[in-house]
């Protein structure tokens, strides 16, 4: 199948899933049931940034479904394909919002799910100073946990902020990767849609630090492309949904590097089958240059280890 058709298929799947879940939630809770992410002033940040509208109830979300539909126009051109990627992002936000509407704590440790405004504000300074040189979003599943750990630790040692989505979380745990905000490795959730919580970070950076007005989607995309040095590593077999979410990442200016054979787009969608080279490939694709002074010591050394606690047993 051609790339754009895969994206459209994934976006339609995301739309159907969002519609289904919302319908079920409304049946259960009624249209006036409250919708909100915890500890944010930006409602549902992606929908807020895109439309300028705050979502308060499940009924509002029905309107947001219209936004998703309007973004899916199945023409064989890049622009509608990227828009369909954004549609998937909005659909994912709807799905995640419904999760929070149905359940006060849909995410449990080790997963964080939604990230609070306070955390984003705390990340602002190190992002601006370059202390955090980039944001890696690692999703899917590596062939083994050792490989997963190698990639994640590589980012960690370079000071990057790494978000994990999917089975790679278990692989990281299995390989004893230490996680937590202070360690700059944040497991988001097991569902693909939980990747939206990192998109939400980027979008809120645009709202908070960029001062871009809600509703000006093109300006938000310009901000994320120029100012948020994020990229995506998608490992393991890619579903249409993941590819379509990847198109959303590309729309925001974030390249996608995968270990799968895909129809490559230079600098934006790349195949790197050699896991040892994934970090270097990703940093080059996002234009992240890290000034490193390598100190030849037998343990990892980076700002990411600053908040590490050494427990008795260790």
């Amino acid at each position, binding site marked *: 199948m051609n790339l754009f058709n895969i994206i459209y298929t994934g976006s339609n799947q995301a739309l159907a899933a969002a519609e289904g879940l919302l319908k079920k939630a409304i049946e259960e809770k009624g249209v006036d049931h409250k919708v909100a992410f915890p500890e944010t002033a930006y409602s549902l940040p992606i929908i807020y940034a895109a439309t300028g509208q705050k979502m308060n109830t499940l009924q509002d979300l029905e309107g947001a479904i219209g936004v998703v539909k309007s973004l899916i126009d199945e023409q064989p051109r890049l622009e509608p394909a990227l828009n369909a990627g954004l549609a998937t992002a909005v659909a994912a936000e709807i799905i995640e919002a419904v999760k929070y509407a149905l359940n006060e704590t849909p995410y449990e440790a080790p997963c964080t799910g939604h990230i609070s405004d306070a955390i984003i504000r705390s990340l602002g300074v190190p992002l601006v100073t370059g202390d955090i040189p980039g944001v890696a979003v690692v999703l899917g599943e590596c062939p083994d946990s050792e490989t997963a750990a190698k990639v994640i630790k590589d980012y960690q040692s370079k000071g990057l902020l790494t978000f994990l989505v999917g089975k790679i979380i278990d692989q990281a745990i299995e390989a004893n990767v230490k996680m937590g905000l202070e360690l700059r490795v944040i497991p988001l959730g097991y569902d693909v849609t939980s990747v939206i919580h990192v998109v939400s970070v980027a979008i809120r950076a645009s709202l908070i630090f960029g001062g871009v007005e809600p509703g000006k989607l093109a300006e938000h995309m310009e901000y994320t492309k120029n100012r948020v040095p994020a990229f995506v590593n998608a490992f393991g077999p890619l579903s249409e949904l993941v590819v379509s979410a990847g198109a959303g990442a590309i729309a925001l200016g974030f390249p996608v590097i995968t270990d799968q054979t895909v129809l*490559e787009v*230079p600098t934006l969608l790349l195949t790197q089958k050699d896991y040892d080279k994934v970090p270097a490939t990703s940093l080059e694709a996002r234009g992240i240059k890290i000034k490193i002074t390598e100190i030849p010591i037998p343990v990892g050394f980076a700002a990411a280890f600053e908040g590490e606690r050494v427990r008795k047993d260790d």
Partner: protein
Amino acid sequence: MEEKNFSIDPTTEALVIKAEKEGIETLWDRKKIMKTPCGFGEEGLCCRICAMGPCRISPTAGKGAQKGICGATADVIVARNLVRMIAGGLATHSDHGRDIAHVLHMAKRDGNYKIADEKKLLSLAKEWEVATENRDIYDIAHEVAEVALNEFGKPFGSLRLLERVPEQRKQVWDENKLKPGAIDKEIVTIMHSTHIGCCADAKDLVHKGMRASLADGWGGSMIGTEFSDILFGSPVPRETEANLGVLEEDQVNIIVHGHEPSLSEMIVLAVEDPELLQLAKEVGAKGINLSGMCCTANEVTMRHGVKIAGNFAQQELAVITGAVEAVIVDVQCIFPALSPLTKCYHTKFITTSPKAKISGATHIEFEEEKALASAKQIVKEAILNFKNRDKEKVFIPKTKSPAIVGYSVESIKSQLDKVVNSHIDPMGTLKPLADVIKAGVLRGAAGVVGCNNPKVKHDYGHIELMKELIKNDVIVVTTGCAAQAAAKAGLMSKEARKFAGKGLATVCELVDIPPVLHMGSCVDISRILMLVAELAEMLDVDMSALPVVGAAPEWMSEKAVSIGTYVVTSGIDTWLGVAPPVTGSAAVVDLLTNKAEAVVGARFYIEPDPYKAAQQMIERIEEKREALGLSLAEAEA
């Protein structure tokens, strides 16, 4: 002129008004005086190849003369006329290529002509199995030149450069006996077969034309391009300006017009000569301002950024500005009308080639043996003419546009290197282009080439077609007068990406290129052939499988007929904005616009409306994409 609506270019309109006021005729006036063209000639139904004629065939079946005196039918007469046009175009490009090969053969370390691109020479030497180890580069050059010169008249075998295509294409040509032998032989064969009482089979004649045309694209033209690069350097991206606004009020304006860079390259050197610059000062000019027209302009702009004064239909208008001291010409597409026209101004009309003498012009024969001295003498004539300029008569339109030119295949590859991830792919390939086409970010590529023709509103066909294509994420490569139209219209500036669809605009941004790429002169269409061939090879498919199309929206010359034919024969669908004189034979039209596809995988389309043409091209591109996607999926499985 009553109708003012004959060009989309403001300088053209302004200068035609000036011409009118001064009682000067232009091509548009002469076109008008022609009144309605002869219907027999227009449909290709008139035959003058023997003294029993002229014969003409009625365009209506069953009514009037259906056969010539010898019995030739409309099909035969139309086909013969068409392939003679191909032979004319082929002869023109080939003689151009031959001359450049001769220049390489006389290149010397301490001569005027030197080797500028050793790498390209060595790679060609390797391709042609010319020994290179421990040899002087000039000895290699001379031997390579000799090999090339033999391509024009070798008694056996087919052309060497045909080997550059993918295996699949070779097979198509082999199966259909389309591989040409020696270049000149193909011209002779056509002239022979179209003699009275010789070939009288329309299909066979058209196939002969197709075969001959390959001796142009993959023969004469390609030799012209390769050797020009070897001698004068492979073009790299550079900035320039285009349109008649490049002429300067206070400088000596020299226009080089014609085709062969062996002359214009020397003129480029001559205008920088300190003595001549001093002379220019002495006659009261601030300097020497060199600009070009037609393909010679393309050659020097690609390699030196020399400004483009205008394209084919503007050659008279340059003189009408009253600000041109000399028009220096060599061969091809030079209006004889320039001779009486320049008499109305101070402009010197200087012919230089023994192949193209024009009555009334000043002929200063360009001697390649002492090329620079010869060029200096010509430039001196121009400088000395500055004092004769009538300031009252000077009017230079202010319009000009910035453009980036110089996109040879080599420089396209090095631009593409910008987007190569060094941890994944090697540098110096077309893979990024193949990737964006496969992914669909670019839907396809179109080569828009050709001339100007007063049957079409000047530059309208070129520009509207290009804009429609880039808007739909089809990248445009262009050469010749079409390229100059694009440069004038601002489509070759990086800002022009705002006219492009998101996919193409993204590619332009990442690769740092304009959406319309200037690939050079008309012989440089061979660059487009090479680009397509390499792309096909990279994807392991035939050239005809790629979502690639060609167009000549305002074509006029026999060269364009040969070009269109070799492009189709190479497997690329080609749109013509002006109907060729073939409509008198339904069979020939069918061969060109339909049956050709079964033979070479591509065909001609005739569509004067650029919007409709763009639509058809995009539809065809999508069809090819569909098929290509399937065949690539098959290959992967």
